[in-house]
C-alpha cells in the first residue's frame, strides 16, 4: 500500500506569515498552537492554497486572496515540501502571477500560470499531478472532508455529495484502467473491449503475429517450391544415393583390383616361366637328339676311317671313265679292224659338235651378237660386226669342210692308225687322270664301277649325315646361347623357394641331374640350359610364394564379377561409365535446382525462428489476456465497491461517532438517501440537528461525519493530510479527550495537523505544540 502524503515543510510569504515551518513525520498529530490571530488557520490555508491556488473568477476567492496579501508587502508566494507517491516534491507558487514550479528530485517542471479550473494542457496536467499525490485535483472536496476549518464544522452536512466526492477517488480506478489499456495497446492494436476503437499503431503482439504470418508464408513458399521441385529432388536423391553406391562399389573394386592385378601378374609370370621352361626343355632335348645323331654318324664314319676315301667327284669321274672306256674299246676295235683291212676308217675321231668346228661356232655367235648390237650401237656398226662374224664363220666352215672332205674321201690307213693310236694314248691319259686318287684304282673296271659307285655313295651319305648332325648341334648350341642370354632370371633363392622346387622337379627330371662332364658340342649349352632351368624353377617358386601371399580377403566383389583383374577392370570400366553418366545427370539436375532456387533461409532456421516467434506470441498473448483480466478484475471489484459505498460510509461515520461518544450515540442510519440519515440514541432515532441533539452531541456527530468521510476516502486510498482547526471548541474536557484520542489514532496512518488556541485543554491532554505561533499586528 502506498504511503499517505504528508507536508514536510512550508516556506511562505503569505498573510501574516513570512518564514518557514517544519512538520514532523512522527505518528502523532502535528500540533500548531497560538493565540487568536496568530495565523494558525492561515498557516493551514497556506499549505493547501500553495497547492491548489485561488480561483480568480470567483469573487469570494479573490476576496480571500486580497486578504492574504503579505503584510510585509513582499510578493505573495509559498514553497511546500510534499512527500507523496514515494517521493519528495517541492511546489513553488507565486500567487500574484499564478505561476507554479514543481521540483521532483533533479527534475524541475515549470508549469507557468496554472488556473485551478483552467482547461489548458498545463492546467490539466497539474491537476492530474495533484490527484496523483493527494487524490484530488481541486480544493473543493477537501473543504468538505479532510480540511475542517474553524467554524466550518457546523456547516457539515451528511449528504450524497460525499459519495460524489468519493467518485473522485474512484478516478484511481479510471487511471488504473487507462494504464492497463495503454499496456494492452503496447501489445496489441485490437480493441481492448467490444466497441472500443482499434489502434492504428502495431503492438508487440501484432508485430510478432505479422512476423509469424510472414514466416509461415515463407515456409509455405518454401514448401510450395519444394513440392514443385519434388520430382527433381527425388531424382536428385536417387542419383545421389546411386552415386554414393556406385562410388562405394568403385572403391571396393579399385581396392580389389590391386591384389587381383598382382595375382594376375604373378600368374602371367608363372605362365611365362612355364613357357620358358618348356622352351628350354625342348631346346635341351633337341641338342641332345642332335648330339645323339652326331654320335651315330661319327660311329659309322669310324668304320671307314682307315680306308681311302673316294674323291668327292667320283660320281662324275665314273661317268667320264665309262665314256672313255667305251671310246677306247671302240677305237681299239676299229683300229684292229682297220689294221686287218676289214673296214675303212670312220670319222669317229671327230670331236666337234654337229661336225662344225668350234671357231665357226664362235664366229656364228659373233654374228648373232652383232645383230643384237644393232639396236644399241646402230645399224651399221652392228651389221658390220655381224657380217664380219658371218664371213669368218663361213670361211672357217669352208676350210673345215675342205679338210674333212679330204678325210671323208678316205684317209690313208697309216695316217688313220697313227691318229687312232694317238687318240688311244690320249684316252689312256685321260682315264689315268680320272683314276687318280681312286682307291683300288687298279681293280676299277667297267665291271666293278657299279660296286665302287655304291660304296662311294654310302661314304658320301655317311659323311653328309655326320656333317649335318654337327651343324645341327652347333646351330642348337647357338640357339641355346642366345636363348639363355635373352633371359633375365635371378639366381638367388630363399628358403621358401627351395620348398617349391618340387613344383618343377618332375618336368626337369633326371636330365637335370645328368653330369655335364661330356665335352660334346653343345655340352656347354646344355649346362647353361640346365642352369637356366634351375633358375626358372627358383623364380617360379619365388613367385608362387608371393602369389600365395596375395590375399583377397575383405574384398567383396559385386555379383557377376569374377575374381580376376580383367573381369574387375571390365566391371570398373562399366561402373565408372555409369558413375560418370550419373554424376553428369546429377550436375545438370543441381544446376536446374540452383536455377529454380530462390533466396531462402534453410528450413531449420525458419522453423527455429517460427518457434521463437510463437513463444513470443504465446508470452505476449498471455500478457494481453492478463491485462484484459486485470481490467475486468478492477471493473468488477469497483462495481462491488460502489454498491457498498453508502453502507460503508455510514459504517465509518458510525464507527467514528462511537469512538467520539464512547458508544452513547450511533449508529447513523439512512433511508433512501444520506439526507434522511438519523442517529440512533438508545432506542430513539434523532435527526442530525440540534435539537433534538444537544449542541455538543451535534458537534460530535458532525466531527464523526468529517472523520468518517476521510476514512471513506482512505479506503479509496485517498489520504491527504487531515487538517483540523480548533477541534476542541465547544467541547467539554471529556469529549475533548475523546476527540484528541481519535485524532492521535488517525495520525498513526496519515498526517493529522491540528490547530488549537485552547491551552488549558492542551495542557490537560498533555499535548505539546510542535509549532507555536504568536499573534502579530498587521
Amino acid at each position, binding site marked *: 500500500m*502506498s504511503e499517505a502524503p504528508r507536508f514536510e515543510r512550508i516556506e511562505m510569504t503569505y498573510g501574516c506569515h513570512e518564514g518557514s515551518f517544519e512538520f514532523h513525520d512522527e505518528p502523532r498529530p502535528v500540533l500548531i498552537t497560538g493565540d487568536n490571530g496568530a495565523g494558525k488557520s492561515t498557516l493551514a490555508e497556506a499549505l493547501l492554497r500553495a497547492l491548489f491556488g485561488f480561483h480568480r473568477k470567483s469573487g469570494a476567492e479573490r476576496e480571500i486572496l486580497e486578504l492574504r496579501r503579505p503584510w510585509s508587502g513582499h510578493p505573495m508566494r509559498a514553497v511546500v515540501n510534499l512527500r507523496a507517491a514515494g517521493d519528495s516534491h517541492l511546489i513553488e507558487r507565486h500567487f500574484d502571477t499564478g505561476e507554479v514550479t514543481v521540483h521532483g528530485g533533479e527534475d524541475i517542471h515549470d508549469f507557468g500560470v496554472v488556473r485551478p479550473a483552467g482547461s489548458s494542457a498545463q492546467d490539466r496536467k497539474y491537476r492530474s499531478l495533484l490527484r496523483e499525490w493527494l487524490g484530488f485535483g481541486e480544493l473543493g472536496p477537501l473543504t468538505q472532508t479532510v480540511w475542517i476549518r474553524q467554524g466550518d464544522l457546523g456547516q457539515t452536512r451528511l449528504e450524497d455529495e460525499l459519495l460524489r466526492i468519493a467518485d473522485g477517488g474512484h478516478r484511481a480506478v479510471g487511471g488504473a484502467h487507462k494504464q492497463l489499456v495503454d499496456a494492452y495497446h503496447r501489445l496489441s492494436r485490437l480493441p481492448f473491449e467490444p466497441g472500443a476503437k482499434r489502434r492504428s499503431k502495431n503492438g508487440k503482439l501484432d508485430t510478432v503475429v505479422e512476423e509469424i504470418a510472414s514466416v509461415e508464408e515463407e515456409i509455405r513458399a518454401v514448401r510450395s517450391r519444394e513440392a514443385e521441385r519434388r520430382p527433381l529432388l527425388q531424382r536428385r536423391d536417387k542419383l*545421389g*544415393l546411386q552415386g*554414393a553406391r556406385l562410388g562405394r562399389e568403385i572403391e571396393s573394386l579399385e581396392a580389389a583390383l590391386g591384389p587381383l592385378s598382382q595375382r594376375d601378374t604373378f600368374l602371367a609370370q608363372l605362365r611365362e616361366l612355364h613357357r620358358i621352361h618348356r622352351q628350354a626343355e625342348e631346346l635341351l632335348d633337341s641338342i641332345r637328339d642332335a648330339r645323339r645323331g652326331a654320335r651315330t654318324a661319327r660311329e659309322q664314319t669310324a668304320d671307314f676311317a682307315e680306308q681311302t676315301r673316294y674323291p668327292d667327284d667320283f660320281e662324275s669321274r665314273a661317268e667320264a671313265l665309262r665314256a672313255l672306256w667305251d671310246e677306247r674299246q671302240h677305237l681299239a676295235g676299229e683300229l684292229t679292224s682297220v689294221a686287218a683291212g676289214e673296214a675303212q676308217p670312220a670319222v669317229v675321231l671327230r670331236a666337234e659338235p654337229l661336225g662344225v668346228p668350234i671357231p665357226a661356232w664362235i664366229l656364228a655367235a659373233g654374228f648373232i651378237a652383232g645383230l643384237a648390237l644393232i639396236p644399241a650401237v646402230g645399224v651399221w656398226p652392228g651389221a658390220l660386226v655381224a657380217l664380219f662374224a658371218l664371213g669368218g664363220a663361213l670361211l672357217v666352215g669352208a676350210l673345215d669342210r675342205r679338210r674333212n672332205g679330204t678325210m671323208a674321201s678316205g684317209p690313208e690307213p697309216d695316217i688313220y692308225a697313227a691318229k687312232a693310236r694317238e687318240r688311244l694314248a690320249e684316252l689312256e691319259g685321260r682315264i689315268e687322270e680320272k683314276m687318280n686318287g681312286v682307291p683300288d684304282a687298279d681293280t676299277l673296271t667297267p665291271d666293278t664301277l657299279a660296286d665302287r659307285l655304291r660304296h662311294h655313295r654310302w661314304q658320301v651319305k655317311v659323311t653328309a649325315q655326320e656333317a649335318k648332325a654337327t651343324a645341327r648341334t652347333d646351330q642348337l648350341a647357338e640357339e641355346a646361347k642366345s636363348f639363355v642370354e635373352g633371359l633375365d632370371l635371378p639366381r638367388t633363392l630363399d628358403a621358401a623357394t627351395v620348398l617349391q622346387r618340387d613344383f618343377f622337379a618332375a618336368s626337369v627330371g633326371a636330365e637335370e641331374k645328368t653330369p655335364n662332364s661330356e665335352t660334346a658340342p653343345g655340352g656347354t649349352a646344355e649346362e647353361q640350359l640346365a642352369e637356366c632351368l634351375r633358375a626358372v624353377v627358383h623364380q617360379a617358386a619365388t613367385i608362387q610364394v608371393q602369389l600365395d601371399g596375395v590375399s583377397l580377403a575383405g574384398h567383396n566383389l559385386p555379383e557377376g564379377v569374377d575374381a580376376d583383374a580383367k573381369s574387375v577392370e571390365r566391371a570398373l570400366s562399366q561402373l565408372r561409365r555409369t558413375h560418370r553418366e550419373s554424376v553428369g545427370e546429377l550436375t545438370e539436375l543441381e544446376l536446374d535446382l540452383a536455377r529454380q532456387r530462390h533466396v531462402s*533461409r534453410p528450413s*531449420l532456421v525458419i522453423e527455429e525462428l517460427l518457434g521463437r516467434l510463437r513463444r513470443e506470441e504465446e508470452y505476449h498473448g498471455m500478457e494481453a489476456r492478463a491485462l484484459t483480466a*486485470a481490467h475486468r478484475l478492477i471493473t468488477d471489484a469497483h462495481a462491488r465497491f460502489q454498491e457498498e459505498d453508502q453502507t460503508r460510509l455510514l459504517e465509518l461515520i458510525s464507527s467514528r461517532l462511537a469512538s467520539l461518544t464512547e458508544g452513547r450515540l450511533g449508529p447513523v442510519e439512512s433511508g433512501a438517501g444520506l439526507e434522511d440519515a438519523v442517529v440512533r440514541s438508545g432506542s430513539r432515532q434523532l435527526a442530525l440537528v440540534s435539537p433534538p441533539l444537544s449542541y455538543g452531541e451535534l458537534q460530535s456527530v458532525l466531527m464523526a461525519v468529517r472523520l468518517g468521510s476521510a476514512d471513506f476516502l482512505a*479506503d479509496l486510498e485517498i489520504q491527504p493530510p487531515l487538517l483540523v482547526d480548533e477541534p476542541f471548541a465547544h467541547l467539554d474536557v471529556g469529549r475533548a479527550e475523546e476527540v484528541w484520542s481519535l485524532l492521535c489514532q488517525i495520525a498513526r496512518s496519515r498526517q493529522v495537523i491540528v490547530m488549537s488556541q485552547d491551552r488549558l485543554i492542551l495542557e490537560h491532554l498533555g499535548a505539546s505544540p510542535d509549532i507555536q505561533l504568536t499573534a502579530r499586528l498587521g
Partner: protein
Amino acid sequence: MDFERDRILIRLLHIADVHLGASYAAFGPLADSRRAAALEAFRELPEHAAYLGAHAVLVAGDLFDDTFPTDRVRAEAREVVRRLASERPVFIVPGNHDSAPDALPTINEAKGSLFVLAEPTFGAPVTVVTDGGPLHIYGIAYDWARDPDPLASFQRAEAPGAHVILLHGAVQDAPHWEAGSALRLPHDSLARLDADYIALGDYHRFRPPAGFGQDSPAPACYPGSFAALDYTETGTHGFVLCELEPEKPPQVTLHSSGVQAVLDVGEVDVGGCADDAEVADRIADRADETSLPTGALEGVPDYDLDAAAVAEHLRARFGGCHLVDHTRLYDAAWIHELADRPTIRGHVARLGLARAGGLQGEERQTQLRALRLALHALESR
C-alpha cells in the same frame, strides 16, 4: 592413436556456432552492443590462436547466422579467416544455418591454407603436416538427399598422425535431435568412429569428451556457441583448445571469448525482502559484476513484488538481466491481509484470489498475473 614420434603434441583451436550476423534480439536493448562485442571478440581469434600455439583451427559449422550474410559480415569473416589461415591451416564445415553453398564461398576468397570441407560423404582426409605432427582432417557438409547416413562412409586412413573428424550435428539429447533435417549423431555411432578427436558443432553448450557417456565414450567435444545468443546460454562461452597426445584421450580446455557471459543465479527466494530493490540486491549478491544475471524469483513475497521493477534495478547495475517470476503471490500473507481490507485494492485482491482459486494451469497463472497487474495499476495511479 598411432603417432609415430614419441613426443607429438597437436593443439587444435576448435570453434563452432559463431553465428556472425545474429540479431541477439533476446537481449533487447543490449542487442546492438552485444553483437558488436561478439564481432570484436571474433576479430581477436587470430591472436588467441597465436598465443595458445594452435597448430590448426577447426570451425564446426554455423560460422554465419544466415545463409545470406550481409556484405559487412562477409568481409569481417573473410578478414579474420584470412589472418588465421595465413599462420596455420583452417578447416571449415558448413552448419545448418549456413548450409547453403552461397555463404561459404565468400570465405574461400581468404585462400591460404583454408579448407572448406563441402562434400556430403567422407572421403580421404585432408592431410597437413604441422609442427606437432601429421594431421588428417575428415569433414562433411551434411546433405540428407545425397547421403542420409554419412557416418557409415567414414574410414580412417592408414597413416601416422592425428585423425580428427569435423562435424555439425546433434547428439541424442541435444535440441536439434528431433529436427528432421539435422544430422543425428547417436552416441554409439560416435563411439564407433575411429578418430582421435571429433570436433562437433551445433549444440550451444560446452560439452567435453567426458560428457559423451560412459557406456559408449567418444573423444568428442562441443565447444558451445562463441557468445551466448540468448539468456538460456549461461556460463562461459568461447572456444576450445584441444591437445592431442599419443595414447591419451584429448585434453580440452574451454576459453572465454570475452563477450559478457550470462550467469544463472538459480532460484532466488524473495521471502523477507521489503521491496524490489532488496530483491535486486539479493540477486546481485549471487551475480558476477561482469556477467548478465538470469534466474527465477521464487517463494512468497512479503510485499507486492514487481518483477519488472526488480529487473530494472538489475539492468541499471549489470546492463541487462532476465528474470522469471515464479513467486507464490496467492500464498502471501500481505495479499490476504489486503483482501481483508474494505478498500478497492482489498476488493481487487479478494476477487482476484477467488477467481484464481478455481482455476488450474495456464488460466490460473493468467488470473494471478491479472491480479498483480491490477494491484500495480491501482498502486501507481
